[in-house]
């Protein structure tokens, strides 16, 4: 890349490379559109009990129009309870995005601390920690989330009965368990990448200089190692979000994730797939949630791949 000026910082150069990648910019725009639509939507929807007018409806508002094909009033048609599909798809996407984003943050916290400590301490600590990661890689991690959710399902009613927690918290706690669980199994790659990077940073002169100046390990990690790994961390964070959204949609599809009346893209697709029969095809029930999931995953993967290529050290020079 000879046309990239050399007087810029590595991060600025990476940003320029990213902006030159048309697919990545397209992905960024698509992501922005999806995020904007799903988070602005709640601001304009009417009350769940108000009359159905116009094309903006509440995701939980029922009507007598069951399985109505898309029209001007219901742009994506209605579902089995006569609920407006457009609004359900948007609120489902919102839940999927939230699970993906918070799950990715959970995996970020675990993965970065694990990798940074292993790489920075080195020696025996490093060996034990990375062997643990190797072993965890070979275990059926998603099944642990299923076991975890099952266990929680058993405990929550008891806590409610004994008054430890409020019954209204139950859906929220299950929701939280979902992204903690999914984040808890998605940090392995992040840990490996960060550890490799920290290992290479550790022997660089400026770190040795800080050490010679008597700066504490924690401070070196915070002030020098982590800021220098930021690009890499962001890359893998963006790639983790679609992965977690995918896991969440799988679990929800199977009935193990998001519980009704809440909807995510996975449960919406499962509802649509249930209505497949040879007499009539309610194509909108499947097409729109599936299309939304594919669009979201495509957009996030384009951004993630673009960032990875932009921050790739092999692209320098």
């Amino acid at each position, binding site marked *: 890349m000879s046309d990239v000026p050399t007087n810029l910082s590595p991060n600025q150069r990476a940003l320029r490379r990213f902006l030159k990648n048309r697919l990545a910019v397209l992905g960024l725009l698509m992501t922005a559109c999806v995020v904007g639509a799903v988070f602005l939507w709640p601001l304009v929807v009417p009350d769940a009990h108000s009359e159905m007018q116009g094309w903006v409806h509440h995701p939980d508002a029922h009507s007598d129009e069951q399985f109505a094909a898309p029209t001007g009033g219901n742009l994506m048609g209605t579902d089995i309870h006569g609920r407006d599909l457009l609004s359900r798809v948007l609120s489902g996407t919102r839940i999927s995005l939230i699970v993906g984003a918070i799950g990715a943050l959970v995996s970020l916290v675990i993965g970065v601390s694990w990798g940074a400590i292993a790489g920075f301490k080195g020696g025996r600590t490093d060996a034990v920690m990375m062997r643990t990661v190797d*072993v965890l*890689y*070979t*275990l*059926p*991690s*998603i*099944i642990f989330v*299923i*076991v*975890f*959710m*099952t*266990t929680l*399902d*058993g*405990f929550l*009613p*008891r806590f409610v009965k004994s008054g430890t927690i409020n019954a209204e918290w139950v859906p929220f706690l299950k929701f939280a368990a979902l992204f903690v669980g999914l984040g808890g199994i998605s940090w392995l790659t992040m840990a490996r990448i960060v550890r490799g990077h920290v290992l290479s940073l550790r022997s660089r002169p400026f770190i040795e200089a800080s050490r010679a100046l008597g700066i504490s390990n924690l401070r070196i990690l915070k002030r020098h190692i982590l800021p220098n790994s930021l690009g890499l961390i962001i890359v893998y964070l963006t790639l983790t979000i*679609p992965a977690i959204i*995918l*896991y969440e*949609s*799988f679990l929800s*599809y*199977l*009935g*193990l994730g998001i519980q009704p009346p809440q909807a995510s893209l*996975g449960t919406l*697709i*499962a509802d*649509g*797939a249930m209505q*497949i*029969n*040879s007499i009539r*095809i309610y*194509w909108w029930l*499947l097409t729109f949630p*599936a299309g939304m*999931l*594919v669009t979201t*995953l*495509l957009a996030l*993967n384009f951004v993630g791949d673009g960032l990875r290529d932009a921050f790739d050290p092999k692209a320098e020079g």
Partner: protein
Amino acid sequence: MYFVRRILFMIPLLLVVSMLTFVLLRITPGGPFDKERAPASPEIERNIKAKYHLDKPIHVQYWIWLSGVVKGDFGPSLKYRSHSVTDIIAGGLPITLLIGSMAFAFAMGVGIPAGFITSVGKGAWQDHLVGTLSILAICIPALVVGPILVTIFAVRWQLFPVALVGTPMHLVLPVITLGLYFAGRISRLMREGMLDTLKSEFIRTARAKGVSESAIITRHAFRIGVLPVLSYSGPMIADLMVGSFVVETLFRIPGIGVFLVNSSLNRDYTMLIGLVLLYAVVLLLANIIVDLTHGILDPRVKFE
């Protein structure tokens, strides 16, 4: 020697996994009998619990269960009480393994040539076409592919049966549904692996020695270029398992994936623990095989 150690290391690992799952599920309040009619009397309830050892302390329960497992007996299913977990697994495992391995073969069989074509013709039209198709495949998960394939090929055109198993025709749609995503992933990995390899020193040496370009690509570069695909196949088998839950649910296939999902919903603990253990064994073995193959393909890898 290395692989003997790896296999021996599985034993403590499986013990830890089984102990954690067992304790976690057994201390969970509520049980498989909650959804059924309440027992006629406390007496009967006590008898049922005694029969399944649910009244004993947890470490005793684990010990009873473990001594059964060693003999190949995972205990009775708490939900389908006339069947043992071993029976149910033995009934469902072959079909799950069949579909899983066929999807694996499909993903490799489609993905490796696709990646090969895109890397050899880098920048040409086939690179763009196959590359775009691969990215699309990665972003269209099984739970989207499956219903679409069913609607078009089974309901609308009636080329394939909608569900269940029986004839080879029954397998086509589930295998494609399960394997498509992985074919896309492999295609991308193969392309990256080949392009990286073609830049390396030993390829330059081969070129300098006057080896023909086609021999370089097929005999020298392919062997090393395929390694990223190989390292991915371990995690891929784990993800294939997750996909098989969806595929089995969608196509009503009586494999063990369905039982895993149902046992979680029904809190059929013995069933769930048995299946967790089974999946762990399959994955651990698969990873050992992957490492073995790695050593055979890449002479630089040494196991100590």
